[in-house]
């Protein structure tokens, strides 16, 4: 590995000696003032970051390139306050919320297809994007369900005028291969662009002695197309298409036998929109979005070729939306929209094709007073055919103390609707023997098991249950945005989320085989609170340093009360005796680190034209299991120890920035944890090459 490293390093040095000393061009200097950046996610209108009363950060495509990253999970892993979590895929944890509470958008439209609530982040390529916008705190007032922790919006590239084409590749450990090609053509009126990507990996095993892969080999393809036409200065029409297909070779052991087969996944979306400016004050946008997501898996025993398991999952999402922006006065902008949504799902684990219909409306007023105070007030009302309607208000204000300090305050309501699984799942684990039923069909499924004589005791009569409702939260964010010096930017944000009606599983009956029947209930209340701080300092035109920390407490209200009242007990692992759980021992919700930190440095060496980037990410210890049966995390051996990941990248641009050579090492220290962190394969070394052409 180190020989390879040295070789690439030499190659870069050698190539740099070939070219004459390059002048530091505009694109080479590090970040300009990031607060001047215009973003769309926080208000659904274009607005400068420094004018927003809501915590938002952006990651530019240049930063992603500098770090040698190709997929969404890689870049989110290094953001202050975000943590990756593995649960049926790799998702993101924000402000202490599980992956299912962060809405992921591409150009403002939701990416569908979650497994147990997790949207696999590596599905999204970074090669054709302009930037990522990350809004923390609930945005249900604009986006509805799922935006309870926040929103991550991936903004794809808008091509510049002329003809452009490019190709970029990255190859490395585990035969990880990422190849992209793109082309675009743009005139005053017409814009056309296309993009294709292939991402594959030979998989890896964290426990080679098992004979099985921890992560299976796969090959994924992404193809996107965008076209836009400007009829006049007033009217624009755009359409974008996205196709993604992934094929995976699964192989694992079941009861001392080996099973294997293929898992396929396909998603497709089409997104046409039309924007019309009626006047300086009035702009309307009509958008339509249709997305489908399908998975198929067929697994057979290798010895007898008998089928072991065959499943499919088919999801459809259709939405029409109309939004109007009205600038009443230069200091007051009102944005309002209405939409209608139709969702379907058909799967092995559901009895029939299920569908949801919902309609919604939202309104938001954005008012600037005395050039210093900005107030955003708004709300969204969602009506649904299966569960209770939901109103999600938001009030946010920012006050500019002076040129250097701005105070931000917001209070908002977030919600997450029960998903198809929680309503309609009909699943019995063939190996362990337990069953899980969604709320809606619980009664008839339980009756069926009773008729078959499989139930030994009904613990809760389903007819006494009240219907399953949305999970909802009140969230408060207070922060300071600081720009105390020309080259220094810092953000501090303190948050508190009170979540109610959290849906979790509980047993409703016991079976004659000793296992249980589970269903979903609005059961728990939890809270998350903490704060984050992030700082970026441009020491010179070529050297930038930065860092961030997050402190987090995420607790279950009932558990925490029990601990506070001294009613939570633990079994001492040494003596086997029962002892009281101390407040300091209570670890809160699973998978939440109390402390996270990162530091980054980026350096541009002007003489050789080499750019270096080095980042350190620390994740403090977090709870993963319960071995003493009290249902909470409290013993030392119920935690995963804290760990550090160090990633580095080095690259050089040649021939007037048309060719670039890059060398990346992720997880330089080679940290792995085969028991609890399956998504960390150890040290990864990549070499990359890209070429851009324009006419």
């Amino acid at each position, binding site marked *: 590995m180190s020989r390879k490293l040295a070789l690439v390093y030499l190659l870069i040095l050698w190539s740099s000696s070939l070219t004459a000393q390059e002048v530091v061009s505009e694109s080479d200097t590090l970040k300009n003032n990031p607060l001047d950046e215009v973003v769309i996610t926080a208000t659904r209108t274009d607005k400068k970051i420094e004018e927003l009363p809501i915590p938002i950060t952006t990651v530019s495509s240049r930063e992603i390139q500098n770090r040698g990253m190709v997929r969404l999970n890689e870049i989110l892993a290094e953001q202050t306050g975000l943590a990756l979590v593995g649960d049926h895929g790799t998702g993101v944890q924000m402000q202490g919320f599980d992956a299912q509470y962060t809405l992921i958008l591409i150009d403002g439209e939701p990416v569908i297809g979650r497994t147990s609530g997790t949207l696999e982040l590596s599905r999204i390529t970074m090669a054709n994007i302009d930037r990522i916008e990350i809004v923390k705190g609930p945005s249900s007032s604009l986006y509805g369900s799922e935006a309870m922790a926040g929103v991550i919006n991936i903004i794809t590239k808008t091509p510049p005028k002329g003809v452009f084409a490019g190709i970029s590749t990255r190859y490395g450990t585990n035969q990880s291969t990422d190849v992209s090609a793109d082309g675009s053509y743009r005139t005053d009126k017409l814009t056309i662009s296309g993009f294709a990507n292939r991402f594959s990996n030979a998989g890896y095993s964290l426990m080679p002695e098992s004979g099985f892969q921890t992560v299976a080999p796969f090959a994924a393809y992404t193809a996107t197309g965008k076209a836009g036409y400007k009829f006049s200065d007033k009217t624009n029409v755009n359409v974008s298409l996205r196709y993604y297909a992934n094929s995976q070779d699964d192989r694992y052991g079941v009861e001392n036998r080996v099973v294997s087969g293929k898992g396929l996944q396909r998603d497709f979306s089409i997104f046409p929109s039309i924007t019309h400016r009626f006047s300086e004050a009035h702009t309307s946008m009509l958008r339509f979005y249709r997305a489908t997501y399908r998975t198929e898996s067929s697994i057979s025993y290798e010895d007898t070729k008998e089928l072991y398991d065959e499943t499919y999952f088919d999801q459809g999402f259709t939405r029409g939306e109309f939004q109007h922006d009205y600038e009443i006065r230069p200091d007051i902008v009102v944005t309002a929209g209405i939409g209608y949504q139709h969702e379907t799902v058909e799967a092995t684990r559901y009895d029939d094709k299920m569908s949801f219909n919902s309609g919604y409306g939202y309104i938001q007023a954005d008012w600037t007073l005395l050039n210093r105070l900005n107030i955003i007030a708004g709300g969204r009302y969602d009506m649904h055919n299966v569960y209770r309607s939901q109103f999600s208000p938001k009030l946010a204000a920012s006050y500019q103390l002076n040129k250097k300090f701005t105070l931000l305050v917001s209070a908002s309501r977030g919600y997450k609707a029960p998903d198809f699984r929680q309503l309609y799942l009909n699943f019995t684990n063939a190996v362990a023997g337990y069953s899980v039923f969604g709320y809606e069909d619980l009664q008839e499924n339980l009756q069926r098991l009773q008729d078959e004589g499989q139930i030994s005791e009904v613990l809760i009569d389903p007819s006494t249950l009240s219907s399953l409702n949305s999970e909802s939260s009140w969230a408060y964010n207070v922060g300071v945005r600081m720009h105390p010096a020309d080259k220094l930017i810092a953000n501090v944000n303190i948050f508190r989320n009170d979540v109610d009606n959290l849906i979790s599983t509980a047993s409703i009956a016991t079976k004659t085989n000793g296992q249980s029947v589970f269903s979903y209930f609005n059961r728990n209340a939890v809270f998350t609170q903490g*704060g984050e701080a992030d700082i970026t300092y441009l020491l010179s035109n070529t050297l930038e340093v930065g860092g961030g920390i997050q402190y987090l407490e995420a607790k279950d209200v009932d558990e925490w009360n029990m601990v506070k009242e001294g009613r939570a007990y633990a079994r001492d692992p040494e003596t086997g005796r029962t002892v009281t759980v101390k407040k300091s021992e209570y670890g809160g919700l699973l998978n939440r680190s109390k402390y996270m930190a990162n530091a980054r440095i980026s350096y541009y060496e002007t003489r050789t034209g080499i750019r270096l980037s080095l980042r350190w990410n620390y994740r403090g210890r977090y709870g993963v299991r319960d071995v*003493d049966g009290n249902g909470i995390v409290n013993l030392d051996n119920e935690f995963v120890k804290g760990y550090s990941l160090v990633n580095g990248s080095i690259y050089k641009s040649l021939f007037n920035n048309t060719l670039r050579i890059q060398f990346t090492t992720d997880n330089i220290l080679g940290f792995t944890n085969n028991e609890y962190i399956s998504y960390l394969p150890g040290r990864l070394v990549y070499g990359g090459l890209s070429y851009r052409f324009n006419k």
Partner: protein
Amino acid sequence: MKTTFTQANAVTLAFIMVFFTLSLSSCSKDDGDNNVTPELEVKTVEDLDGSKTRVLLDDSGNPITNENGDEVLVPIRAYFDFSAGKEVDSTSTTWDIKFDGTTLSFGNGAEAQLVEGIFDNYVTAPSTGFSTENMAGSGTWYNYTATTDPQHAILPIPGKILVLKTHDDKYAKIELISYYRGNPDTSAEAFKDFMNRPDSKVYTFRYVVQPDGSTNLK
């Protein structure tokens, strides 16, 4: 605009960061556990086996088979007489608790309830609140871990004490310790694999019986 990073700014910045860190950390005070020296004998039962099965027989004593031709097996439950301090069989008229998988049932007039506390420190049985109803379901005397590691495990909840009024009106307290043969270490790597765990429905527990009929369980 060219501003310098003044000392005042640095102080403000530092102040805000320190304030925000401090405001989030809370002090905690924990009470120690007062230990009581027991006067009654604490007995331990290891591996009371409720995992055995027998072949189901028809009226003439022949094995009953299912559609595949396999013999139909029925479980043999474990029954325990606490006053006598021994395992008995299902035909006995002195059993207090029937261990039926995760369900505990009470027979021959025995009644029970679950209370919270530390077993050794729990010294007086309540006079009311007993019931003959079965104890079943996650959250009663055990937690089912579901998809939390160790997955699909039945773990007795520490601090749950089963107070029993036996069939012959004696008070007893019982602490369930394990649902698996050999009372295995639940934090061990081997216990994680639910396919290869030691036999379930094999109970380890401690108990104290007050033979004089009083509620004193010290």
